[in-house]
């Protein structure tokens, strides 16, 4: 097992990693989020469970599993947009029993990273009624206020299980999280080095960051980038320019030359801040962090032990009223939630327009 000092070091120094077994037995059961508290808060857990749902792909392994929050009785749910790219590949499960519902995109808001969907009825009027969250102002919350959320019991498994209740506190000041843009997670060679490789026009990849979009898409050291998102690239500056025009979560196509073989690869971009912080793959978040972790107009920060898959679920107070939507697992200690004030008006507007689309006025 790895052991980390808390001391943070800036720079590129490569430090030795030592491994050693834990010498003393450590307690298995967390006290704050353990069974004791779950028993005590069983009513709250039920309340929270009825208002969230799971979303997963229809592929064989059915991963990933992410959370959604019910915001309208007619099957309207909010999700974290950057976690659910091609909606047609996913189904939403509102309970352990249902077969899963297909979804229709009502609104995708890339600024807030929110996706509003409605479940599609297989037959007219076949949708059961759903229980929408009841919102409460988040501005009243300050450091130390208890909050809770539903969390996927085992994020590594695609099995549907009742979500667990997690309890924690508002841990820091509400604030805007500026965006640092998107990144692929590659280190690129200069023009001479690329030319020296004799591969041709393009940009040579010198290294690929751990768990980065580039690594997940299968890009390798030695690949020659030729086109990024349809743009020809001749130097690293151009690659950065093209990538910076996109948001974390966007899918872009990268064309490259591997040896003499031309390849076309789809890459899902992540927040640049995430890629840089995790370059060497030290997953001090333990469970990973979200694809998009920044560029939010306002967030509540809390210390709930959640995973990236739990994003899209609502953040509740201990009365079971919703304060906002969990939007990004940011690091080992922080999860961000969009406070309801940020999206309430927009959401009402999207719902209103979808429920009552403008009617054609008959011509006389």
């Amino acid at each position, binding site marked *: *097992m*790895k*052991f*980390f*000092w*808390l*001391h*943070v*070091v*800036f*720079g*590129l*120094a490569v*430090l*030795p*990693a*030592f491994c*050693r077994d*834990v*010498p003393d037995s*450590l*307690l298995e059961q*967390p*006290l*704050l989020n353990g069974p*004791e508290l779950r028993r*005590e*808060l069983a009513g709250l857990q039920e309340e929270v469970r009825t208002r969230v749902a799971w979303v997963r792909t229809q592929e064989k392994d059915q991963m990933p599993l992410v959370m959604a929050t019910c915001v309208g009785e007619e099957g309207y749910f909010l999700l974290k947009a950057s976690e659910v790219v091609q909606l047609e590949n996913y189904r939403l499960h509102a309970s352990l029993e249902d077969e899963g519902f297909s979804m229709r995109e009502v609104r995708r808001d890339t600024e807030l990273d929110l996706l509003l969907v409605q479940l599609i009825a297989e037959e007219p009027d076949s949708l059961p009624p759903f229980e929408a969250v009841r919102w409460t102002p988040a501005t009243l919350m300050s*450091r*130390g*206020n*208890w909050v809770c959320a539903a969390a996927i019991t085992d994020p590594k498994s695609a099995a549907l299980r009742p979500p667990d209740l997690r*309890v*924690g*506190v*508002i*841990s*820091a*000041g509400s604030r*805007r999280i500026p965006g640092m843009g998107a990144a692929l997670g590659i*280190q690129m060679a200069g023009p001479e080095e690329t030319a020296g490789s004799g591969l041709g026009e393009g940009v040579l990849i010198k290294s690929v960051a751990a768990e980065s979009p580039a690594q997940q898409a299968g890009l390798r050291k030695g690949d020659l980038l030729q086109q990024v998102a349809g743009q020809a690239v001749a130097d*690293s500056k151009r*690659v*950065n320019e093209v990538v910076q025009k996109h948001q974390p979560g966007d899918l872009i196509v990268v064309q490259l030359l591997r040896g003499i073989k031309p390849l076309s690869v789809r890459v899902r971009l992540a927040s640049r801040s995430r890629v*840089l*912080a995790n*370059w*060497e793959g*030290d*997953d*001090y978040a*333990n469970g990973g962090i979200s694809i998009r972790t920044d560029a939010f107009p306002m967030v509540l*920060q809390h*210390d709930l*032990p959640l995973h990236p898959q739990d994003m899209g679920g609502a953040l509740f107070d*201990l009365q079971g009223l919703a304060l906002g939507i969990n939007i990004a697992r940011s*690091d*080992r*200690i*922080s999860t961000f939630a969009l406070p309801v004030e940020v999206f309430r008006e927009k959401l009402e507007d999207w719902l209103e327009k979808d429920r009552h689309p403008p009617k054609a006025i008959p011509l006389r």
Partner: protein
Amino acid sequence: MRICVSVRLVMMVLLVLAGAPVGLVAAERGADVAAAGEVGADVAAAGEVGADAGASLAQLQWIQERVQRWYPKLNRSVVVLRSGDGTATGVVVSEDGLIMTAAHVTSKPGVKMAVVLPDGTFARATALGLDPTTDAGLAQLNDRETKWPFVRIQRYAGAVRPGQWCFALGHPGGWDAGRGVVLRVGRVLKVTANSLQTDCVLMGGDSGGPLFDVQGRLIGIHSQIWEGRQQNMHVSMAPFMRSWEAMKGSAVIQTWGTGSGGYLGLVPVSAEPFGVLVEDLVPESPAALAGLLAGDTVLRVGREEVQDDLHFAALIRARAPGERLRLQVKAAGGELRRVEVVLGQRPGEGVTE
């Protein structure tokens, strides 16, 4: 493109923990009684909702009130410490600017550090003494004239028990004006001779930051994390109290040349009304070689009466390997006997240099 890794954690081996000398533990208990009048009201309040260790809704509400009452007072004393290219946390514990932090933050006496105060202004501090084995460290704000806001210390480390509520403050990842001091609420999971383990989740930059009990008293200094979210380690007050004057005088505490003190090789369980029951023994260990048996109860170590398992661990680890020690033992059948034991060294702690 140049890679710029902005934040990187240093991985190191675990330090095995040393123990607290007995005399001091007793002395500290006296000090705690003297200070109890000050916090008497708080203790009474805790009594209203049972102990301060459960997790009922009423308890959660009570904890929230406590934490929200203390946060605005305590966060004024939580500072960022920067030295070299690292960032960490410290907490001011006296009006003239004494700072408690982790030894791996100060690294050695005399090191100059930049301090970021909670309002964003800068000051300077100098590292004082440290105890590298337990990761306890002190520093001093260079400006001793300002009346610094400071926090109170729970001087008796033995008062901290597993299951009790606590909260952590710190500057994880470094200074962030919009975010401020970050709060985490949790419970004490484990208490050892020199450290505490809690589920207040820590990360890089929290090092040296304070852990408080719900009476707002300092009970720990953030030290280390393992991968697990429940694996957050803090230096307890024990090593600070043990070497307080020496560390203030810029001494580097070297309790043991190597390792973490004496080793017996038995599993102690607190017995009633005092002493520890030997639940199990490591074969060929000093305890086994001396003839101790599972089912024995150790009543005294030397002349000292053993209070409980923690006290026992502290008594053993406070002595050096090789020391000859007399134990008073009660067998399962009730007969008393004396056992002579020669303390060993914890397995795996041999001299490596």
